[in-house]
């Protein structure tokens, strides 16, 4: 790891001002991606501004129609939260299968979606549930937030404060993990919402998380596993690598979609 300056921010304002005075600073959430990247000498921020001490980023609350989770809440907290389990059990289940216990106890919701790894789990839930991302300066809808692999609409000094998930009628998530990394090779989050069915796919798309429109249409006509898995998925825009061809991923998207709908009930 290259030398870096570590700062622990006490508030959002403190964090942005620390970032403002850094040469080439990076915000640090749970550090589950950034720290290993730095250890491999692939990232060399001059300053690390740790957001872990900011009270505004903590907490889980629900008002009956919306579930709001602080950006600094860990995957383990989401998985174990009775509020999440009651409002959106699929989200708690998703969080309980991210990485390993170490990752789940350090990694955060905000860190995950700000990184927007094309194989991360959370982006699928955020997009499928039509969540709203609240930052220190604005609110961004999920559809506007994710801009392709590792790209989001966040500006460099912008900090995610919380994510608000409209509570769906029902939802389910199924993923096929990469045998080596255990990231999703295809992860499908299917939700039946007040706006109709929404289906988002992670791990498979060349541009990161995306909505599978044809599946949404099929589910709108018939909310059933067979309807979801019966949709033709084109391999054209899907990733192909040593772990799986785009054809295989297209198959996985169909199969996982069926299983997600089945899990949703």
């Amino acid at each position, binding site marked *: *790891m*290259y*030398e870096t300056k570590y700062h622990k921010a006490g508030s959002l304002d403190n964090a942005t001002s620390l970032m403002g005075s850094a040469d080439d600073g990076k915000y640090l959430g749970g550090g589950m991606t950034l720290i290993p990247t730095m250890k*491999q*000498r692939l990232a060399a921020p001059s300053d690390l501004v740790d957001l872990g001490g900011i009270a505004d980023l903590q907490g889980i609350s629900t008002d009956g129609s919306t579930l709001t989770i602080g950006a600094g809440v860990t995957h383990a907290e989401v998985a174990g939260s009775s509020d999440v389990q009651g409002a959106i059990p699929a989200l708690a289940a998703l969080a309980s299968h991210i990485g390993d216990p170490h990752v789940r106890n350090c990694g955060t919701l905000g860190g995950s979606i700000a990184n927007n790894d094309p194989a991360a789990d959370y982006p699928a839930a955020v997009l499928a549930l039509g969540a709203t991302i609240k930052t220190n300066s604005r609110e961004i809808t999920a559809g506007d937030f994710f801009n392709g692999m590792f790209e989001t609409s966040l500006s460099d000094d912008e900090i995610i404060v919380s994510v608000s998930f409209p509570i769906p009628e029902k939802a389910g998530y199924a993923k*096929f993990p990469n*045998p*080596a*990394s255990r*990231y999703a090779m295809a992860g499908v989050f299917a939700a039946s919402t007040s706006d109709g069915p929404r289906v988002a796919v992670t791990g498979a798309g060349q541009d990161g998380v995306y909505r599978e429109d044809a599946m949404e249409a099929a589910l709108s006509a018939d909310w059933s596993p067979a309807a979801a898995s019966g949709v033709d998925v084109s391999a054209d825009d899907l990733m192909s690598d*040593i*772990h*799986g*061809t785009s054809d*295989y991923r297209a*198959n*996985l998207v169909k*199969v996982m979609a069926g299983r997600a709908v089945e899990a949703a009930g």
Partner: protein
Amino acid sequence: MSEGIGARVTRKEDKRFITGHGRYTDDIVEQNQTYAAFVRSPHAHAEILSIDRDAAKAMPGVIDVLDGKQLTGDGIGNIICGWTVNSKDGTPMAMGAWSALATQYVRYVGDAVVIVVAETQDQAREAAEAVVIDYKELPAVVSAVEALQDGAPQLHPEAPNNQIFDWEIGDEAPTDEAIAGAAHVVEMDFTNNRLSPNPMEPRSAIATYNAIEEHYTLYTTSQNPHVARLILSAFYQVAPEHKLRVIAPDVGGGFGSKIYVYPEEIACLWASMKTNGSVKWTSDRTEAFLTDAHGRDHVSTAKIGFDKDYKIVGLKVDTIANLGAYMSLFSSATPTYLYATLLSGQYNIANIHANVCTVYTNTVPVDAYRGAGRPEASFLIERLIETSARQLGISPVELRRKNFVTEFPHQTPVIMAYDTGDFEAHLSDAMKAADWDGIAARKAEAESRGKLRGIGMSCYIEACGIAPSAAVGSLGAGVGLWESAEVRVNPVGTIEILTGSHSHGQGHETTFAQLVCDRFGLPIDNVQVIHGDTDKVQFGMGTYGSRSGAVGMSAIAKALDKVEAKAKKIAAHLMEADEGDIVIENGEVKVAGTDKVLGWHEVCLAAYMAHNLPEGMEPGLKEGAFYDPANFTFPSGTYICEVEVDPETGTTDIVQFTAVDDFGVIINPMIVEGQVHGGLAQGIGQAMLEHAIYDDNGQLLTASYMDYCMPRADNLPSFTIGHTTTACPSNPLGIKGCGEAGAIGSPPAIINAITDAIGNNNLSMPATPQKVWAAYNAASTKQAAE
């Protein structure tokens, strides 16, 4: 005796390992410790045009920046392969020059070019990034088959067409004739996937030079510190043997990859002299993927002929083995004498011919990895037998039984003479334990859940404890393959065993001590096992090839014989009895049939007091032995794998795995089970998960755990393990060896099971979900078309 041979004694060494008190090389810090970092080639093949070290030398904390021209200029010799294998036409093997630091060409990504020594590890790494090397990139080749083709990039001037040797074993003409006249012939192609060894502890070295004494000390992650010292001294001219101490302290796994002397140890030793200090280097995981010798990487075709009664009449094999960019220490032996000599499997085959062509490619060197040659042989023969059974419409069990060797000793046509075994015994035990006959019902039940169930077996035989020295010498080995031991009895009766074997996870501190408990009835806590230090241990050939039990413990047993004989002489003298009437048991030395008795410690004390010894006897009680085995040992077994495949995704679950092995006499069943579990995990890894992949430009795509799939707990079933026993006749303990069997026997059983489940025999390792899914769909599509 509860702690003797056959007892499930918990491991003495686990107290320190489990509590985090193991002392590995990287835990050691010498006075004024400095740190090394290597500048490595980013290219698979390139010419070094220039090296600019100035900027790096000016960096903070940098002590020196050294390159290959300086190293060779100081007379440091090239790295050699220690086993000579010549081509069938008599041409010597083509060993390309390999300098610890490349001087003119780099030949794989990770090839070391410059060593930087600095006051801290970070400073060394940062300075390494400041070394400017101008390369002229050259075309690269990573596939052994492609490397042999016309127009392929050439790696070494010594090796035209990249061929190292073209070797054969067995008689070709009678084999061809037998197959030509066979009633049934089955042909098959094989690829044995390339693997990264992945010991938990990465390689590490600390070299310290003492200018006053002109003496070097090397701490290193070695499976064989004496062999390392011998090679460093005799071939690399780093230091004379008596001025070089090599210590391999706690070592966290090796699997073969820590047998070899690597460029880093040589460069650190040399740099310690150049900087007159202590230089430490520890590989990070990326360097481990790039530079630890890989395993396997064979491409083969095979043809087997049967007579009308399904008796095998001939087997012909053609193998191309990828040895990477340079010849590693035992790289020539692995795909020849450790592979083709086992192609007879458990079967009586009158005619075998194998041709093995070894090839240079722009990849990290390939050498022995858990099993070393025998997994390649067992995969080939056990997949071929299974496939033959399927094609000929005969039960795979029947086909094996018809061809089993049943009389011993059995001379195969490929050097090996099997000394003992009972193949039917472990076959029937395994079939019973796995409920082989009940598979139809389980398949039907799985089908009702939408799953495809399959079963497959493998009847492996392997060879451990390579020996005897004279025989392996005649086959080209550059070392003898005996082992040494010293049994040092202290005046108070406690015992130290100094062994040339090296434990890097095998539990020698426990099992070796059990031999003493068994012999004298002493508590295990009274025995200390010492290994891994050339200043302490007389000599040793180290631990690999599952040799520590059969060879290392036999040496201890021989030394114990001598100690026992002398102790009996002393006791007979003290108790005025006949030497032949002395019995040693439960820590007591008795005269049989009388009430005369001395404590073991009293006899030991008498040996050292020397007040009253038999006339002419030297004082003390310490004996050494060198043991050179008369033959290899031949563990064998039957493995049965049962799988369930999800046809929608290709995900394969191993629902049951049964392993019944004949390891001969077992010293500690718990440790043997642990060895089998670990071997099976690595076999499952090779069969289903692991694959080291280079792209066409020679970049390693699987250089981290994000892409290289290691077996994890949830990939493994709860194993069913059993044993049958035929004692090995060629060593005093009857031991055969258990360290590699799991990795040798399991891959073919797994692939036989998966191919049975999906109804398509065309499936290569690793059988990833994608490959299984594709193979299943290909079979279903074909079936639908028919």
